[in-house]
């Protein structure tokens, strides 16, 4: 427990000191999005990594959070501080309702059902032009204000978003090591066995699905208030896949892994910019290679790799 706390404290220090080095530059802006993506990756990881339930529709919840927040603050001129929790509650309830039937499905069927859900939500964002502005997007969303500070610059947004992200991380870390976390892992390994041990797997799955949707919605609201403009294109099927990639690359069932995955995938385009059109290929290949050769993700993959190399060296040393 102490070690965990120390690790988190180090991480906190690392995150909070970043602006010292990058403030003023463009990288600051990218780091804001690393924060949002970390939140989303953690949300999906709780579902996928801990409870073992796949979702290919999380961009939909992210989008709902963004749109609900955006619509409430523009069309109905509500304060973001009211809009964000309202959006989160609405998305959570909806996810709970849909989760009841959807989480009865398994494996591929669950993947397909959540994918369908994501696409339906995307079509709704596109078609309800009077509410969402349709494909041309919704603009003029206000920045968040707190105690007279308007969060309208990269550095301010960085602290705001990472503040929330760190809370979400701490919460998720605690959840993972709590009774619920253990129950979730039991469900992951064998639902039947979990049931026998007195875990209500069905309710637990729905709860974690709703929680995951709530975190995604929160990330969506923050995204809307940071960007001040949203359009359906940001919440499509491709983004759901990108989130999945983050979680898989970082490592299923590891909260810090989600950060690594989110950071890597958000920063990767910056390094691949010279590669022009090739980045989509690198992206697909990376996904396959990770699953094939590093199924534990970066978090577990690298230590494994080191151990292997050392072992080999030791062996060859003996020979």
């Amino acid at each position, binding site marked *: 427990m102490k070690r965990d706390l120390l690790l988190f404290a180090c991480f906190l220090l690392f995150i909070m000191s970043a602006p010292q080095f990058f403030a003023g530059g463009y990288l600051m802006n990218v780091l804001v999005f690393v924060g949002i993506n970390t939140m989303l990756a953690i949300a999906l990881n709780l579902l996928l990594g801990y409870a073992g339930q796949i979702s290919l529709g999380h961009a939909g919840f992210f989008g709902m959070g963004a749109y609900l927040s955006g619509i409430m603050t523009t069309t109905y001129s509500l304060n973001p501080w009211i809009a964000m929790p309202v959006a989160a509650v609405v998305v959570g309830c909806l996810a709970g309702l849909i989760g009841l039937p959807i989480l009865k499905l398994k494996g*591929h*069927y669950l993947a397909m059902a959540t994918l*369908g859900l994501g*696409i339906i939500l995307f079509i709704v964002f596109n078609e309800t032009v009077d509410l969402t502005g349709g494909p041309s997007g919704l603009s003029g969303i206000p920045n968040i204000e707190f105690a007279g500070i308007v969060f309208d610059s990269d550095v301010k947004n960085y602290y705001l978003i990472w503040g929330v992200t760190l809370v979400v991380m701490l919460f998720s870390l605690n959840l993972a090591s709590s009774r619920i976390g253990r129950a979730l892992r039991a469900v992951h390994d064998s639902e039947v066995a979990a049931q026998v041990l007195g875990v209500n797997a069905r309710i637990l799955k729905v709860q974690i699905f709703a929680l995951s949707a709530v975190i995604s919605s929160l990330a969506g609201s923050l995204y809307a208030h940071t960007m001040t403009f949203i359009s359906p294109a940001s919440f499509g099927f491709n983004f759901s*896949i990108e989130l999945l990639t983050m979680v898989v690359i970082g490592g299923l069932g590891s909260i810090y892994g989600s950060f690594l995955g989110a950071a890597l995938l958000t920063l990767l385009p910056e390094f691949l910019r010279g590669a022009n059109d090739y980045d*989509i*290929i690198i992206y697909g290949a990376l*996904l396959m290679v990770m699953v094939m050769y590093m199924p534990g993700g970066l978090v577990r993959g690298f230590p494994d790799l080191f151990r292997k190399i050392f072992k080999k060296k030791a062996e060859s040393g003996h020979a």
Partner: protein
Amino acid sequence: MQFDQILQYTLSGLSTGAIYALIGIGFSIIYNATGIINFAQGEFVMLGGLLTLSCLELLQLPLWAAIPCSVAVATVVGVLFERLAIRPLRQPTPINLVIITIGGSILIRGLAMLVWGKDTHAIPPFSGDDPIAIGGATILPQHLWILAITLIIIVVNKIYFYHTISGKAMRACSYNRRAAGLVGIDVKRMVLFSFIISSAMGAIAGIIVAPLTMTAYDVGVMLGLKGFCAAIIGGMSSGISTVVGGLILGVLESLGAGLISSGYKDAIAFIILLLLLFIRPQGLFGKADSERV
């Protein structure tokens, strides 16, 4: 509402549905032999169309030669995919398989974008494009080709699965892989076979629709998803119920676009998918199967 309008919606729906059915059967064949939902299935549809384009324009082949050539190349891609990505997988859990086939589809699409560019391409119809009138509605000769080829494929499938040794062996795999292995069936070879058949079928589907819908590196995504819906409605069978599933989906979409709202047309398909998964995950015609619920 006039009769000929409804007739036209139905006919359009049936011809679109036949395509969904072909793609859907491709999904089911692999699923039944391996338990994998191949998210890259739609990419073979794209490959079929674009490879035919290259055969026609670059190699100057006549159409009758271009079609088998491109089906062959697409099949080779299917084999490579199975060999390089599916077989070496150390932990073939459903989640890993979903992710790896998604990765594969992104990769194939990206390579296709490099080879053929981002433009949309047209392929000439097999036999002219003078509309044929049926009642008050019209269809194109290409629609007849689609329906005919779909029919032929279903018949060939039926013969293969029920009247040849390897077809029966593949069915045995789909019932119980371990048992099939115990009676001496080479399960790995059957998996490879299933990839061969379904990538060839995907490519054929891609070729016969290309003259109507045109083709580009990214046509596979939506067609693949629709094909999967068809397979789900048909209860993942590799026979007639998936075909009916595809046709139902096509007709409902067409009627939905014509009578309800064209904007929500795709949503209709996916709402049907969700409802079906909730209420009858075994498909419209299937018997209950505990694995999926």
